[in-house]
């Protein structure tokens, strides 16, 4: 990874490197997420490209020092545009034996390992099944190990504060952050400012954390144990103003922006669920932007209230994860029948049932596609990265409002919590989503009546006539409606026609054609993914091409309806590979729709694909070595 070497001001060697992957790992209570977040902010402020992968247990505080209690945060930062949080860390910070044990296998030989030695007690070692202390035997010989008594050093640094030993030790994560900040030439002011703001109400805690942070920094600077420091130059991203953003934050901003662009009040009806709750938390802060949030008694009430708000002329939104979608299904079916706009944000997690609440998976595709009674088509859009959640939300709302339909947006745990730089859009260039409510009677027979199911000839959308509009009083509901007048109809031909009309409306939604990236122009293998696997697939393609092979990449953003040219694209390649974090749900759709022999590569491990493994799969595909 290193390219240039120089000598820095402290007489230490400074290596210029293009990219680094750091993983902070510790106990759930050690503050690893905060530490990682903070380092990420510094990398962002410095202008690096970056991608992050938080990985934490579902338990808030699993028993201390155990393997299930390990929480980690991986950060990949670079001086060029990167696509993933990195397969394996270059640097692993292990705050206790459990963190070491759970993460060491991912550290390549030669990697840097920074260990908090204070936690390597007999008891803690025994807790995770270490028979001998790895710091004392030869098991860590393949790595560059730095043993640092972080708790002791932090305690020492905080002695003047008069804090208890136990309280003082809690700041050891800031010691680790200080040390890493020194190693990578990051500034200290940003973090100190952050700590002062975070602990504004408890200035003594702010000062304690700053002391620990500085102690870590100074430890690097003054001790001889770290011979090398590293510099990663700012990345040359496209011109613009950037900020760091997680997928859930981008989703929430997308919803706020959609409300503004549609000139509609936003109503979020929802129920807390991991990993979607942050969307509720964020939107709750933006009442000033016309957002009302309603924490309902359950998932069903959340979407019911959102649908009621849509009926009343608001932009109704509900946010959830897979188990919540299961509960909302009947109401989604009602929204299909009512033909009202509704945005359903599904931040997917590991399933079935409660599954892996804090881990990622893409296994709700078929649930979103088909998980309702009757023929109940719903458009589906899937963002490909954290920042992309913003654009996807706007596009989802466009579909919902234009076609008067519920729309699924399928995010997932990895992009919901992961972050990357986001080029802040010019708000004047955001799409106009304004809608027109019906105000006039429309019956074609000139009777002066209002027909709620008389469709627009182009979009097949029905009029949106909101209560309070004189002369348009009408009743809608889940019973089948007569095509046009919208009265209850049990007529067999009418039902057949309505089923086909609802399908035709969704099939006719305008979505952009699929674009294929094939820099060599001669690829015979196409890799087609959807959603959050964009990063690892893209990184894998780079590796394959760097090895001199050709591979074409395309990524499905619109899963329903699919791009019009998808069939032609698929048929123009000798081989199609579809990697998914499920058991082949997209592949099944591709095979069924296009009779294309798509090769499904699947992994359902609760973690994103690694670029290395996908590169292997693609290389095999290009060389014709894939199993049939």
């Amino acid at each position, binding site marked *: 990874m290193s390219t240039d070497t120089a000598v820095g001001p402290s007489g230490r060697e400074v290596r210029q490197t293009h990219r680094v992957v750091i993983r902070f790992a510790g106990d759930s209570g050690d503050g690893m997420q905060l530490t990682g977040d903070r380092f990420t902010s510094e990398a962002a402020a410095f202008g690096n490209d970056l991608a992050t992968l938080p990985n934490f247990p579902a338990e808030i505080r699993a028993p201390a020092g155990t393997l299930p209690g390990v929480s980690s945060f991986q950060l990949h930062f670079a001086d060029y545009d990167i696509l993933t949080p990195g397969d394996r860390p270059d640097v692993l910070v292990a705050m206790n034996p459990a963190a070491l044990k759970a993460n060491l296998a991912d550290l390549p030989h030669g990697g840097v390992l920074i260990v908090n030695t204070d936690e390597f007690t007999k008891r803690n070692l025994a807790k995770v099944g270490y028979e001998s202390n790895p710091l004392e035997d030869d098991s860590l010989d393949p790595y560059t190990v730095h043993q640092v008594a972080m708790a002791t050093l932090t305690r020492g640094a905080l002695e003047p504060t008069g804090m208890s030993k136990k309280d003082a030790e809690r700041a050891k994560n800031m010691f680790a952050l200080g040390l890493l900040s020194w190693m990578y030439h990051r500034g200290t002011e940003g973090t100190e400012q952050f700590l002062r703001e975070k602990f504004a109400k408890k200035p003594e805690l702010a000062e304690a954390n700053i002391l620990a942070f500085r102690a870590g920094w100074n430890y690097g600077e003054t001790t001889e144990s770290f011979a090398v420091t590293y510099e990663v130059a*700012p*990345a040359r991203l496209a011109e613009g*103003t950037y900020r760091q953003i997680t997928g859930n934050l981008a989703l929430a901003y997308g919803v706020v922006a959609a409300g503004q662009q549609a000139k509609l009040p936003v109503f979020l009806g929802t129920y807390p669920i991991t990993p979607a709750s942050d969307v509720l938390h964020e939107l709750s802060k933006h009442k000033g932007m016309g957002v009302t949030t309603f924490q309902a008694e359950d998932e069903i009430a959340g979407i019911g209230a959102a649908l009621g708000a849509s*009926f009343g002329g608001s932009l109704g939104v509900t946010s959830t994860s897979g188990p919540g979608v299961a509960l909302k299904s009947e109401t989604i*079916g009602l929204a299909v029948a009512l033909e009202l706009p509704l945005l359903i944000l599904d931040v997917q997690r590991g399933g079935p049932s409660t599954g892996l609440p804090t881990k990622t998976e893409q296994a709700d595709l078929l649930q979103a596609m088909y998980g309702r009674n009757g023929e109940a088509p719903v458009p589906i859009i899937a963002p490909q990265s954290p920042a992309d959640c913003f654009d996807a939300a706007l596009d989802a709302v466009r579909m919902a409002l234009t076609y008067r339909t519920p729309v699924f947006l399928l995010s997932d745990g990895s992009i919901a919590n992961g972050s990357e730089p986001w080029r802040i859009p010019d708000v004047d260039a955001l799409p106009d989503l304004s809608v027109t409510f019906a105000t006039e009677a429309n019956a074609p027979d000139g009777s002066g009546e209002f027909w709620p199911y008389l469709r627009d000839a182009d979009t097949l959308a029905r009029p949106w006539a909101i209560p*309070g509009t004189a002369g*348009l009083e009408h009743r809608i*509901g889940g019973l089948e409606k007569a095509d046009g007048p919208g009265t209850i109809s049990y007529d067999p031909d009418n039902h057949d026609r309505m089923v086909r009309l609802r399908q035709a409306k969704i099939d006719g939604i305008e979505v952009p054609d699929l674009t294929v990236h094939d820099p060599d122009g001669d690829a015979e293998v196409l890799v087609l993914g959807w959603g959050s696997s964009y990063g690892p697939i893209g990184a894998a393609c780079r590796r394959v091409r760097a090895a001199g092979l050709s591979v074409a990449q395309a990524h499905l953003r619109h899963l329903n309806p699919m791009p019009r040219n998808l069939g032609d694209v698929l048929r123009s390649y000798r081989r199609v590979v579809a990697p998914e974090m499920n058991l082949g749900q997209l592949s099944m759709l591709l095979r069924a729709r296009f009779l294309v022999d798509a090769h499904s590569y699947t992994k359902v491990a609760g973690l994103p694909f690694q670029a290395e493994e996908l590169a292997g799969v693609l290389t095999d595909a290009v060389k014709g070595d894939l199993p049939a």
Partner: protein
Amino acid sequence: MTATDLPTPAVGGLDLVPTTDEQQKAKDFTSDQEVRWCPGCGDYAVLASVRSFLPELGLRRENIVFVSGIGCSSRFPYYLDTYGMHSIHGRAPTIATGLAVTRPDLSVWVVTGDGDALSIGGNHLIHALRRNMNITILLFNNRIYGLTKGQYSPTSEVGKVTKSTPMGSVDAPFNPVSLALGAEATFVGRALDSDRKGLTEVLRQAAAHRGASLVEIFQDCPIFNDGSFDVLRKGDDVAERLIKLVDGEPILFGNEGEYGVVRSASGGLEVARVADVGEDAVVVHHADEQDPTQSFALSRLSDQDLTHTITGVFRKVDRPTYDDGARAQVAAAKEQAEARGDNLDALLRGKDTWAVLPEPENEQ
């Protein structure tokens, strides 16, 4: 944002709903849909009462919305020429909640039944009452599942023999008034479908109440539970069974007012002959009493065998509504946002940004 003090309702339930000077009649609220309940169904009587009551409110027709769930009574909205939604089983209060929060200019009504509201939708009912949503809930209680052809319901008496309980049901029923009071309801009333005067009076007060109003309507299902409330309609002892609450008045009943409701030794309420206990011993009804204890005791006066059945308004108290509170927070936040000059651009930018300059200038 700091917590906003919730406003105590200063207005009535309909004060934010636009009114009309136009003379309205029951016919104006009648849609062109043919009513398809079974002959003799109590729903007809309720529909007629509601149609003839609505003009009294003087509201613009387009600002009234009826939302229903699933069941016989849930067809109700189709027969009224207002806005309406026939939603899904048990979920009408959720739809009504979204409407009530976002549209203070609407009069929102929920029409539901004993199965819809108390079985599949029990959770939504109690939470709508707890939050004190500004909606009026008409709970048609016929103590049976009609639309699915005659299974017992959560208000059926123990031992009910139905298609699904050929040996009699074994589970204890809900008392909807007790349940509503337990769920912190601010308005609870009860009426009999055939008693147009009594029903209209309860509806009048329910509509005027700001907050969630629950009106239980005893209603006959002539097909699957025929005559279930007949003891309250005909026979010699109707006057000894039916107790009509009058706010501020002693609770007396019987042909000559010879019976009264008095405190029992156990701290609850019981029925006594006035001649035996004296008029002063008869409790006076106060619907606006904050403490729900007496209202609750009234709801438990007799078992569901209808020995003593109370109609009228059990409880009517003021408490902040969720929808007013939620709107007040949004309004306050908007005011603060405007004062600060907040806008979408500033939101998206946040605090920590960095600039990437065009390529040539970016070279170091």
